[in-house]
């Protein structure tokens, strides 16, 4: 187990509301969180090192799984990439396989479960907060 404070998470989502809420929730348990609301910001952020990238699927400029595939297959990025979406689980399973990314986190489970899932993925102890 490692400390959450050592881990950097990038969240890419076109909803500023979701970015703010997710950043707050993950920051509360000690993660360092960066966000990108569009492809230009995502491009800039992806040049930096992260321990985990969460990408929304349905965005206006591009589908998140296409972006994920570009990062994983096109750029050979090794950073774990998870889709973050409220699409049904079976559709997310299919998109994960097609994009060759590491998995998905459903927005449908709520923020608490999302934070726990990120902690599990990164092997981080739960915060005492």
């Amino acid at each position: 187990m490692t400390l959450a404070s050592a881990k950097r998470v990038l969240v890419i989502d076109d909803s500023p509301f979701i970015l703010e809420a997710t950043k707050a929730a993950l920051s509360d348990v000690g993660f360092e969180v960066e966000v990108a609301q569009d492809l230009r910001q995502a491009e800039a952020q992806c040049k930096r090192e992260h321990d985990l990238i969460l990408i929304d699927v349905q965005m206006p400029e591009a589908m998140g799984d296409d972006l994920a595939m570009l990062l994983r297959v096109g750029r050979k990025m090794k950073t774990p990439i998870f889709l973050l979406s409220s699409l049904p689980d079976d559709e997310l399973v299919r998109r994960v396989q097609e994009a060759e990314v590491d998995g998905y986190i459903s927005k449908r489970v709520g923020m608490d479960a999302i934070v726990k899932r990120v902690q599990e993925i990164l092997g981080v102890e739960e915060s005492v907060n």
Partner: protein
Amino acid sequence: MTDDIQARFLPRFLLTVKGRLARAQTLLDGGDSAGLSDELHALAGEAKMLDLRKIADTALRGEAAARAWATGASGGSRAASASALDAVNAAVAAVAAAPRRRPSGTLAAVGKKGKARPKVLVVDDSEIVCDSVTNMLEPRGYDVISLTSLFAFSSTLVAEKPDLVLVDVSMPALDGDKLIHFSRKYNEGGRSVMVLFSTRSKDELSQLATQCGAAGFIQKTGDADRLEREVEAFLHPAR
């Protein structure tokens, strides 16, 4: 943890969702079923993140209805989508009207730095805006009174003697700038600082504030930190 996140972000969510519902109605009216489906999908995602299940569930049903309408699937129609959108509106209204728990670790009980809690009166025909302001300011040590109609404005001003009055500019019965102008006789000695409260541009609000004799303006925001800073600037201008 979720409860704190929900309490912290609910006012912001309610402002965001108001915009989404307005766009959804426009898309419905324009017959853009695919756009409506996307808008309700986004709304459902945001609601799910805050564990607002009733809103999320109705939005997902609306998304499905709009998608069926878009693809010509069985049961898909404008009427079914409209009905589903009504259900989302009702679910949002129910959450907006419900009493809410305050975020933990706030100054709610003690007031600001142990002093008497400043009293803020919000006059806005939108219950969501009134509720959002209340939920942003009360945990930070303010007492907030809100009015969604002008019916009791003058009597509230006299009886409550609020320290600050936030007046929406665009209201059905009377524009806020005119309200401020006409209500000066009830504001004994200028005790209550009268401020316009709107999403309009700074230039327009500055001009309106000068014309009606308001102390200034605050642009509507879902950012509680920013709102508090601007409220404090009017309550303690020397700081």
